[in-house]
């Protein structure tokens, strides 16, 4: 019985370790296409997990992911030729974080949907201002980004992913994570209990943006050409929300699972049905919201409880 228990506690970290080792040595044996595919999947996982660090426990739906991602992209476009890659990525992350800090400090009083609309408006505002600035001041619409080979992009993305997982885990297990959760359950009560609501919310929001900005900075090198429409694409604001809900927000593995499955699905749908891809995407979105409100992890859980019940029934 006790061995069972130890095993049941160990299998998750063990599995994680195996997956990480596989991912780290991936470029040695995988084909070029697979590396690119897994990089895209990792990008969505990074966006989704960083989104859920803040929005998961607090319940504030942020649609600003595309803004943070886009700031990273433009950092790479502006500084890519002047500074070494790791520093560009670091600056991308920090710049996004500064923006998130500012936005967070401004929007604290907004609740529920207002926060969602505000963050959505922010992406569009930045996009249109930038577009106007580029056309008016620089005379061009897009910019070229330095080219980095696919294996390096993959490794950087993997590094960001590992750091993010570690951060998400530490936040979740700390007093800070508990404070976030209490804000989600009842913000006023949390404030009365002595939680510095403002500080916790703004700092978490800024922290989550670091990874999105860093991911944007490295992904920009793969696209080589960018313009405001590519960099601040509102589709990327909705994908993390959808992927997190698809995987199941209540679980630590939900967002990872959701993003990985969904990103793979996206790739398959795009290559198989390029014309109907967005239509299928919409249908999946509706089906998930109506039939899977607790996501894939919720499905796994009901399945497990049912199995346990059956075991108890036979015993």
């Amino acid at each position, binding site marked *: 019985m006790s061995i069972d228990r130890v095993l049941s506690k160990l299998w998750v970290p063990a599995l994680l370790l195996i997956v990480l080792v596989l991912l780290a040595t991936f470029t040695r044996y995988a084909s070029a296409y697979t590396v690119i595919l897994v990089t895209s999947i990792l990008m969505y996982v990074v966006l989704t997990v960083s989104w859920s660090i803040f929005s998961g426990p607090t319940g504030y739906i942020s649609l600003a992911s595309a803004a943070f991602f886009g700031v990273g992209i433009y950092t790479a476009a502006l500084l890519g030729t002047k500074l070494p890659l790791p520093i560009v990525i670091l600056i991308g992350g920090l710049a996004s974080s500064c923006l998130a800090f500012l936005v967070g400090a401004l929007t604290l009083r907004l609740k529920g949907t*207002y926060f*969602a609309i505000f963050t959505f*408006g922010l992406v569009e*505002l930045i996009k*249109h201002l930038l*577009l106007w600035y580029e056309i008016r001041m620089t005379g061009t619409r897009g910019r070229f980004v330095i080219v980095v080979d696919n294996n390096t992009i993959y490794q950087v993305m993997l590094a960001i992913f590992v750091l993010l997982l570690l951060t998400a885990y530490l936040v979740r297990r700390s007093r800070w994570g508990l404070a976030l959760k209490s804000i989600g359950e009842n913000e006023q009560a949390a404030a009365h209990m002595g939680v510095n609501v403002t500080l916790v919310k703004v700092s978490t929001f800024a922290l989550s943006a670091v990874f999105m900005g860093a991911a944007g900075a490295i992904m920009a090198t793969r696209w080589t050409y960018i313009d405001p429409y590519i960099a601040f694409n509102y589709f990327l604001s909705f994908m993390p929300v959808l992927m997190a809900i698809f995987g199941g927000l209540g679980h630590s593995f939900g967002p990872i699972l959701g993003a990985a499955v969904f990103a793979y699905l996206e790739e398959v749908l795009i290559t198989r049905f390029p014309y*109907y891809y967005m*239509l299928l995407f919409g249908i999946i979105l509706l089906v998930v919201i*109506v039939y899977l409100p607790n996501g894939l992890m919720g499905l796994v859980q009901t399945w497990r409880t049912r199995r346990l019940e059956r075991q108890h029934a036979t015993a």
Partner: protein
Amino acid sequence: MLTFLNIAIAGLLLGGLYALIAMGLSLQYGVARVLNISHGEFIMLGALTTYTLYSVAGINPLLSLAIAGPAAFALGYIIHRTLFKRIAASSESPAIFESNSMLAAFGLLFIIQNLALIVWGPETRGYSYLAFPVNVGGALFGANRLVTLGFSVLIGLAFYLFLARTRMGKAIRAAAQDPETAGLMGVNINWVLALCFGFGAAMAAMAGALISMCYPVHGVMGIEYAVIAIIVVVLGGLGSIPGSFIGGFVLGLVGSIVAYFEPGLTLAAYYGIFILLLLAKPTGLMGK
């Protein structure tokens, strides 16, 4: 002075359309609590249907108002009865319903938009109807745009009277204030919410029919109008129909002023106003 008049009238013409679109969304968001980001797709459907009816069957665009409106009403009513009612039943709290229904509306946006792209293709289309200039106090405007303004105001007023004077309108207003109490007072709440969603869709489609008379139309035109509608609804005050109507004209004027000085910044100005408003007075112009 003439420039000033020009800008003001252009703003009113634009504002009439914004007002109509926003009133529709105000019903869906203010009463039915669905932040319907797919609102613009109903506008697009109305516009493309009117275009097809005019260019294929030669049906007068103003007559199409009476076709597109009821058709969109039926579509909206059915969507609420099947989709949003289900989401409401499975959501534990109003906040969860708001976020889930917003995401579902995004799903609708993708579905409707891509179905329309399959049916109509990606081309930009337009037709010429009543496109002769009319002199308004020295400034020249297309007759079609003036007709558009007239119909926007007419539909808006008719709807306002319907809400203010009829029994059904009273039920809608009650549901907007407090759905639970309204339910206890004998209002069939699911029916009223579906009705509101249908009316919202109908107003969007009628606005789309009017838009197609003046501007080129295409399959992905919806999202921009939907975002403008959201801005106007927040500007006017959530759930306030007159607020949305006035807010539409305010935004139209702002748009035409900014477009006069710097056309590239019109949309940025809308978002700028929106963000400032959310920070300074989230309840809007007419909100309580």
